[in-house]
């Protein structure tokens, strides 16, 4: 998932780009959430005490709906405006990676059958989790009833989130996938939909600061991410994060690094058929809907529709659905808080310390 070891590279080389933040600091912001990632998290994390997924009376899993419903309410109650982006067709380049993931799932299914203890069954069961088409459709239906915008990306959801953030349609992209940075989202929020906020506070990554502190251009950064290992091509044998960063700073592009390694010989080699140019194109021009064609509109929830769907079809408790819907109505009626940084220009520390005082004096 995402870029191999990118978080560590960023925290080592650009610590200033990572900020631990809280709900309060995000109040009033619009965020684009990678729905596919969230659903996957819910299916894994929202479980009963015995470790099995929550299910309705017909035995069908409801973990994804419970997660979506309650966590979205919490996001709204904290004053944020979420929009969910769903995956479309994965890029052709990803097919190898997806095959690998399927193979892992199959292996886990097998291990599960062989597993002796319930603990093992539980562990392997989590590894077999895959978000089905029906679960995706149910989540979309739920969100629409809740009055939350649903965006269906033509390609990867995190790329679409990044495009929306880049065009200032939303403040940030919220996902765990680090390749959102590679797709060019100015701000990435991690752990926004995580379960217990106290255990994992929201982490905010700022792409501009990553580039600034690592002294890389955006092109160099994308190339670096490809070198580190992404979902779209095999990693280079022997190319760890330290080497990748060092080579990128010295040679500035994969083409030049490849030429250098070819010339130098040695163990670490970039194969001739490595499709990095196609991957690079994918990161720079991903398959997305242009931001100006995406309409984000938050409306009041359809309470009766929610009751019909969640209570009658899925067996949720009616009281809880109604009180949740009331929270949504309340959340959508509260006017968002403005920010001074939206009104006034931010400048860095003045060069000479006596300047701001002088300015203030002149103002008096």
């Amino acid at each position, binding site marked *: 998932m995402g870029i191999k070891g990118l978080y560590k590279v960023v925290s080592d080389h650009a610590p200033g780009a990572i900020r631990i933040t809280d709900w*309060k*600091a995000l*109040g*009033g912001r619009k965020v684009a959430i990678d729905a596919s990632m969230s659903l996957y998290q819910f299916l894994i994390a929202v479980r009963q005490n015995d470790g099995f997924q929550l299910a309705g009376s017909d035995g069908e899993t409801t973990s994804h709906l419970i997660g979506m419903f309650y966590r979205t309410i919490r996001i709204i109650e904290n004053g944020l405006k979420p929009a969910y982006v769903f995956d479309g067709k994965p890029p052709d380049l990803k097919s190898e990676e997806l095959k690998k993931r399927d193979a892992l799932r199959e292996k886990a299914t097998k291990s599960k059958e062989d597993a002796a203890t319930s603990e093992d069954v539980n562990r392997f069961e989590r590894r077999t989790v895959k978000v089905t088409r029906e679960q995706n459709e149910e989540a979309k239906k739920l969100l629409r009833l809740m009055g939350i915008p649903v965006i269906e990306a033509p390609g990867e959801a995190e790329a679409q989130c990044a495009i929306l953030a880049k065009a200032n349609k939303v403040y940030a992209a919220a996902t765990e996938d680090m390749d959102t940075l590679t797709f060019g989202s100015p701000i990435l929020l991690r752990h926004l939909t995580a379960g217990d906020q106290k255990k994992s506070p929201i982490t905010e990554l700022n792409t501009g600061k990553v580039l600034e502190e690592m002294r890389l251009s955006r092109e160099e950064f994308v190339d670096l991410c490809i070198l580190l290992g992404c979902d779209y091509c095999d990693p280079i044998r022997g190319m760890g994060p330290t080497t990748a960063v060092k080579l990128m700073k010295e040679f500035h592009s994969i083409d030049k690094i490849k030429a250098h390694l070819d010339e130098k010989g040695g163990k670490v080699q970039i194969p001739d058929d490595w499709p990095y140019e196609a991957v690079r194109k994918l990161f720079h021009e991903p398959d997305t809907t242009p931001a100006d064609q995406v309409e984000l*509109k*938050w*409306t009041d929830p359809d309470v009766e529709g929610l009751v019909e769907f969640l209570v009658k079809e899925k067996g949720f408790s009616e009281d809880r659905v109604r009180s949740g819907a009331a929270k949504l109505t309340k959340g*959508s*009626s*509260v*006017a*968002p*808080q*403005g*920010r*001074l*940084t*939206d*009104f*006034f*220009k*931010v*400048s*860095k*520390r*003045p060069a*000479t*310390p*006596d300047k*701001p*005082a*002088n300015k*203030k*004096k002149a*103002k*008096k």
Partner: protein
Amino acid sequence: MLEAKLDAASQLKKIVEAIRDMLGECNIECNETGLALQSLDKSHIVLVSLLLGSDGFSEYRCDRGVTLGLNINSLATVLRCANNDDILTLRSEDRANELILTFEDSKADRISEFNLRLMDIDQEYLAIPETEYAATVVMSAAVLQRTLRDLSALSEAVTIEIDKEGIRFSAEGDLGKGSTHFKPCVDMENAENSINITLSEPVSLSFNLQYFSNITKASSLSSTVTLQMTAGMPAQIEYKLPSGHVRYYFAPKIEDDPYA
């Protein structure tokens, strides 16, 4: 170097207590004209701007600009060790990494000295353009604080409307709603109870009450407060000091389109 003396420590204690809840670490810039501080709160909703002119000190010397990077809460902790009528001295050498505070009891022979470590803080500053506000209201600081406290029982937001009839504070919540209206007036005996409104056009803005009540902690610093507002812009709220001011820029709630 900086050397500044106040005849009563309470002057600085009150200021620091008023602003500490909103601020963490920030830089105090010192030069020959006085001390200045500008800092955003963590959520970027309120900007605190403090100016202590050199005239406000009984003795003041600062030949070259000094930046004091401080944790305001640490400063408050140290200042609590001073009695209100102690003589307070702030001292910092050029390029020193500490601020020395001395508290002298004017009657007895006690002198306490505290050294606060300074920090190198990479701080963001906001450039605030010079603006003419649509409405300016001068009123009693205590009355404003009380009014907002009353309304905070009802809601987390207050709406302030200013027109030529006066200034109106209102809030609405699950309990119900409430409002207080003040007409412009002149009180000859107690000048601070006067309400003076200057208006070029009517204004209506909503603010978060939690932050507003933090701002009104500065009521202990001045008998009157000046509210300046323009529709769709941050409000400026100023408490005058004998020489200088504590000024807040406060971002309003965005009213126009709740779904946008």
